[in-house]
């Protein structure tokens, strides 16, 4: 096909693109993936029966604040990496804020708890399964974000993969809160974060392959 014909063909379908299309598209992919993850969680481990009661307490909101603010930080990084001219990233430090705040709560918890109970508090009942579940729940969300990126133009594929993985992992952790009965800050700080980090690493590994265009 010669270039003139190509241009004529391309110009036949010019759909309007709204302002803020990058963020919007990422949110759509994230939302679709999160719906699948939530369904998966309900079928697989079940939603915790005392969810409504838990939502009246502090720890549930602490966990949601941690995971959702981490997801928000990852979203702002992903938006930047979805542009081809993403030479300089802004706001990377935002991702550190939730981690530091949760670590602060963790330290306060430890000070109030006798050292003999520290290990039980850290490991909870589900430390072995928690990171794996977060990783598994992140997969549909990661797939949704891959769909979002199909109309976007990342040029730093490894970084974009890592950011998408971080976003998928953090949001998957928020979904997992609907099941997880653990209550301690250091549990969340360690095992949730481990699952989120694993998703981000996987994203960095797969990014150059899956995000190519």
């Amino acid at each position, binding site marked *: 096909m010669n270039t003139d014909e190509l241009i004529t063909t391309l110009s036949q379908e*010019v759909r309007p693109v709204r302002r803020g299309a990058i963020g919007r*598209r990422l949110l759509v992919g994230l939302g679709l993936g999160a719906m699948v993850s939530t369904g998966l969680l309900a079928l697989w481990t079940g939603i915790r029966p005392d969810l409504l009661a838990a939502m009246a307490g502090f720890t549930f909101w602490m966990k949601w604040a941690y995971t959702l603010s981490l997801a928000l930080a990852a979203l702002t990084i992903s938006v930047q990496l979805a542009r*081809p001219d993403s030479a300089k990233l802004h706001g990377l430090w935002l991702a550190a804020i939730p981690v530091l705040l949760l670590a602060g709560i963790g330290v306060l918890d430890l000070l109030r708890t006798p050292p003999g109970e520290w290990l039980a508090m850290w490991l909870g009942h589900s430390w072995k399964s928690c990171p794996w579940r977060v990783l598994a729940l992140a997969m549909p969300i990661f797939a949704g974000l891959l769909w979002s990126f199909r*109309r976007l133009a990342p*040029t730093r594929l490894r970084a974009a993969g890592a950011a998408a993985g971080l976003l998928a992992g953090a949001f998957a952790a928020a979904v997992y809160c609907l099941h997880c009965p653990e209550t301690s800050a250091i549990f969340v700080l360690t095992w949730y974060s481990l699952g989120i980090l694993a998703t981000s690493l996987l994203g960095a590994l797969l990014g150059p392959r899956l995000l190519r*265009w």
Partner: protein
Amino acid sequence: MRADEDVLHSLMVDGLDGDAAAHAALLRLLVPLLRGFYRRRARGSDDDIEDLVQETLIAVHTRRASYDRTRTFTAWLFAIARYKMIDHFRRVSRLRPIEGLEDTLMAEGEEDAVAARLDVDRLLALLPAKQARMIRATRVEGLSMAEAAEAGGIGESDAKVSVHRGLKALMARIVGDAR
């Protein structure tokens, strides 16, 4: 129509608003820009260059949602063009060794050069035609004053005065803009 940042940007924004004619006009203006960009950096046959140009046009079209209208259009465009070129090399390098990669890498800054050329075009467009032509001939294309005068069909002293007045006007303009 001259392909400067303002023109390209406004066509792109109209295209994003759904104006198919503006979108087509944009893509047409990009063709010579991209051909120049790739010819200078990738040494391949004309077919290879045209393939790259077409791939880039397709990417500009399908991934236009990634353009943020508050940012510079040419920076977005050349980032896509550069990515497409690196991707092209990556594919080709599996088949044959990359020749002249150093030259390609040396050509970094080409993008700035194109942007600068667009700026020069825009500035010269502000001047009377004769002054612009003489400045372009002597300062951009590197002709001597005598050659430029002959090419323009005017006397050498006329050419000298034109260049002098034109540069002075531009200087005043740039200093004025900076304030």
